[in-house]
Every structure is written in C-alpha cells, then in structure tokens.
C-alpha cells in the first residue's frame, strides 16, 4: 500500500508509475469495499480494506497483495468495473491503497463519476486492447508505465496503446477542474432563479 503518495490535486496531465492488472467483468463496489467497512464517518482507513473478502479468500495471491504490485498506481480492469452501489468508499479505498488511474473496457457510471470527483481518470479501450495491456502488465519487466491523459494513451518503455478518455472529463482533469464544487457555487445566482421559478417549488 502506497500511503505516502499525496492525493490528486490540481491539473492531472499524466500518471507515471507502475501498472498491474485485476481480471474479471462486473466487479461490483461491494467487492471493492464490503459493506461492513462503510461503518465509518471518515474515509481515512479504507485503503487497507480494499477488496477485503476477495483478498482473504486468495490468501496473499490477490493482485492487491502480490509483492510485485505493491507501490503500483495504475490499475487495469475489464468490463463494467465498479457496478452496483454508489458508495464513494470504493474509489476512496482504491485511492488510499495507492491507485491514481484506471484503464478498463468499461466502467459503471456512478463509479466513473466518483473517480472523477477524486481526480482519478478512468480511461477505456476495446476488449482486445485491454487484454493486450493486461498481458503486457503481467509480463512486465520494467516498472515504468505512464497513463497520459492529454495523449489518451498508456505506455511502458517499449509499447504504447491508445485509449479513450471522454472529452469533458479529460478537459476537467487537464485543467484541474475535476473538483466541481467551486464552479457550482460560483453559479449561485442562476441556481436561485431555478429555486424561484420551478413550478413545484412555487405552488405550481
């Protein structure tokens, strides 16, 4: 677990580090962080509990426990990653373990938005390409991987794969606008117009 790395802030142009793979479609947020770990009023300690049940079952053989994956910050997954519950505890747990970027075939929507709100890019690629990247990651012998947001690609020192990052989130990441709160608050006047004109808030 890479607890010393600081959490994302400001513009996120690329993520340098090391990548590892977690195989399987439809990995839900109950698996990423089981419900019993949601009994907390702060996200601080979630990193150690990420994939708690899956890891316990695999007894040290789970990708998040393997020695060679410790310190990795880029995760390669398959389809519909993060489906199920809206719990932000899931990306929080991944982030606190050390994940800073995710590449996969597809992501569940709420999970995708939760990641973006934390400054964690989710990039997509075709099934075939994801399988290629996973193969390369498993057989990696150099530890230098880069997830490049502006170029929409992932590469190591020898190979490179083009990815897709949705234009909106991409711009938000590159400009450092992924934390939406300040932009939303800035439009308070326009919000108040809605408040005073929407039929159901104004006796129809």
């Amino acid at each position, binding site marked *: 677990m890479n607890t010393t790395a600081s959490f994302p802030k400001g513009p996120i142009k690329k993520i340098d580090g090391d990548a590892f793979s977690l195989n*399987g479609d439809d990995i839900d947020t109950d698996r990423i962080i089981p419900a019993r770990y949601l009994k907390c009023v702060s996200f601080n300690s979630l990193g150690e509990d990420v994939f708690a*049940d899956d890891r316990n079952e695999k007894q040290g053989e789970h990708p998040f426990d393997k020695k060679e994956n410790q310190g990795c910050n880029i995760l390669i997954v398959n389809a519909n990653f993060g489906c199920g519950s809206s719990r932000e505890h899931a990306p929080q747990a991944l982030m606190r373990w050390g994940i800073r970027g995710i590449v996969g075939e597809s992501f569940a929507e709420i999970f995708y938005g939760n990641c973006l709100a934390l400054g964690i890019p989710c990039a997509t690629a075709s099934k075939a390409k994801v399988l290629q990247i996973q193969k390369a990651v498993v057989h990696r012998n150099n530890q230098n991987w880069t997830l490049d947001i502006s170029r929409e690609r992932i590469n190591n020192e020898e190979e490179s794969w083009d990815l897709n990052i949705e234009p909106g989130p991409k711009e938000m990441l590159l400009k450092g*606008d992924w934390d939406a709160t300040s932009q*939303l608050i800035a439009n308070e006047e326009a919000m108040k117009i809605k408040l005073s004109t*929407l039929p159901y808030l104004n006796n129809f």
Partner: protein
Amino acid sequence: MSAKTLYDKVWDLHQVAKLPGGSTQLFVGLHLIHEVTSPQAFAALREKGLKVICPERTVATVDHIVPTTSQLRPFEDPLAEEMLSTLEKNCHEQGITLHGLGSGKQGIVHVIAPELGLTQPGMTIACGDSHTSTHGAFGAIAFGIGTSQVRDVLASQTLSMNKLKVRRIWVSGQLSNGVFAKDLILHIIQVLGVKGGVGYAYEFAGPAIESLSMEERMTICNMAIEGGARCGYVNPDAETFSYLHNKLHAPKGIYWERALKWWKSLASDERAIYDDEITFEASKISPTVTWGITPGQGISIEEKIPLPETLPPEERQIAEEAYKYMGFTPGSPIEGTEVEVCFIGSCTNGRISDLKEAAKIAKGKKVLERVKAFVVPGSEQVAEEAKAEGLDKIFTDAGFEWREPGCSMCLAMNSDRLIGRQISASSSNRNFKGRQGSSNGRTLLMSPAMVAAAAIKGKVTDVRKLTKGNH
C-alpha cells in the same frame, strides 16, 4: 438523440449552466440523505468553510445501520451509534429535517420519501444511494450519487452531470397470476444485461407498466440501476396522482389542481424520440429467480441453471465464477434448491403491498423448522399499516420474525446477516458475492411471495403451485 421524452423535459427545466468541460450544472429539486454516505460530505463542507445552501431541500433519515431487533439508544454497536449521532449533529447544525427512529416517519429513504409525498413528478432527485432510481416511478428523474456529489448538492443545490440517452422499454400484455413486478424487472435485466443500461435512462412504458400500482412501479425503477441504468422512470398518470393525493407533502386545494395540470404536461409526447426502443411481452414471463452473483443471472422458475455453452461468450467467465461461488451445477433446476434464510424487506420490496402478497402465502402455513425467516418493513409507516391489518400476526403465527424497519439484510450493515455459506431467498436487489454480510454467503433474488413460499417449503418453490385454486 432523444427529444420530447419526460427525461428531456425534466432535464431542460433543471439546467442551471454549462460547465467548463461540457457538463451541465443541474438543479436538484429534492436531496435525500442518510447516515452512511453523508458524514464525509458534511466534513468536507466544514473543511471548505461552506454551509448547506438550501437546507429545506434536503431531507434525512436513518436506515442502513439501524438494528431491527432493539432500536433503543445507544445502539449496541458503537460504530452504528456514532454514525447516527453524527447524522443527528449534522442535521441539527445545518437545519435539515431528520426523520429519526420513533418519529413515525423513519424508514428506508426510498420508502419514506414517496409515502410522505416528498417524491413528485417532474423533480430531479438525488441521494447518495444507487437505488435512488426508485423515485422515477413518479415521473421524476432520480439518480444515485457519490459522497463528493452529496457535498456538491449540500453546498450548491446543484450537480455536474452529463445527459443520458433514453431507452424506452415497452412491456405489452399483462403479468400472469403469481408473477410480480420483481419478476418482470429481473427478467428485463437478464435480457438486457447488467451493463446494458450504462449511459441510458430507462423509460418503462406500455400496458403492463400502466397496470402496475405505484409500489410495483417503484420495484421496477428501483432495479434500473442493476441493469446499469442510473435512472429509470414511468410517465405520471392517474395511478400516480391517486397515490399522491392527500400525502403529507403533496400539494393541496387549488395547488393540487394546478399541480395536476403541470404533471400531466411532463409525460413523454406521443411523438417523442428515443435513442433506443425494446419490447417485452409480460404474459410470457414466469416467476424469476437469480442463480448467480449478478442480478442479471436470473432464470424463470421452470428453467435450469444455464450451461456455459448456451451463454454468450462474454458472459461465460462470470458464469463460471458464479457456479463455483454458488456451488451450483449447470443444467440443474433452480426449483427445489434448499434455502436456509428467508428475508422479506428492502427498498425494492419492503412496502405494504409486498408484505400483503407475502402474507397471503404465509397465512395459515408454517415456516419449515430449519429455516430462519424474517420480515423487515420498509418504514415505520409500513409497519404501522401492516399491524393495523394484522399482517404481523400472520407472519409471526407462521414462524417468521417480525422486525423493526430498516435496510437490514439487503446489505447487512447491521447484525442481520448470513453466516458462512448460508443461502438466502431474498426480496432485495443484489446477489453480489458477500452482499448479505458473509464473505461466502449466497443470495437468490426473487419476489416477496416467492420468498414466503421458499420459507414454508424450505426450498425454491413456484409460488403459483401454492396458490392454485385460490384465484
């Protein structure tokens, strides 16, 4: 691109601004909060020196962590107690209404907001819970959000969102006897897949949907998210208005008449354009049960657990994982599978009509001795109504435990949970690995009537066989 659908109309009405990056700033008409996904949002607000901008547009309750045996404070579980007291403190400080334990209005957030009349057509509704899609049953656009977004709504009453595509799911015909809304939605998810709805809002329409009660429509919309669709909705109609009439927060008097006029204008136009359309035939659907580890792994009660070679290639890996986890053999029937725990409740099926259907099956029968069966009403109001009708007595006479309201064993954040490899028949919404509180516990999703039948027989049973001749 969709046009003139209810989704388009409600979306347009709530647009506040275009944000850099192309997202839309959307006004949130009703914000619902609970104890699990809000504490970090309030903490973030404090950290940024912000306050809740429209406290009157947020309503809170406590549901996920509450015990269903004794709800006396302080709770036995200190972590649960800390979560509730944090919610109480946050609501008190920020002037937010909290429907707490014993108020008569507490319950699962997706059960209480409709029964209090808070949920109304044409609203945008957000809550830090994926089953917020439930409220779409009223013709609202309702969706689950993460905790950072809960913070955003508290601070600004708005969200940064991208518009979804709209798929119309037209259900013709009528459901047969013994087949319920739960069976219909499990069937739809089985056909369209758990990721089929990603990027879409689901509009449920057609004669079979129009014939459903509001509570049944809530069951359908509740599980839209299990099909990957962040929101699902039904166009408001006479059934919707009749449900809302005289509810606590529903408009009254001349405002009711005005509201009706506006609500009627929101329904998708006859010539609305959809991004996609698909049709189902209700009469062909049988009681449906899940056999695997995703809500999409369902089959009709007459079917056998699918052989891998009969599945599309992309579903085989997760099927293999499911056979192994569930300990099931492909090709064997689901009917007759022994169950150990039976749970009736949840935001999917914990409403009064669900309890009534289950009680019809349980009445005068006995839960098989080795089975642990319990009923958790969705809210204090549901519990009160059930008691007034004697349903609690029917259940306890039959050997079910009658509990206090909450989310309970749907996600097992309280002490209601499976032990070891126990297998449950559950009226809830998710059969994910470990979902019901044991890391190797197993869940079979089905309708409340089917759960009651399973409790009596101790095994998965076609509820139609128990009701033969009773129609």
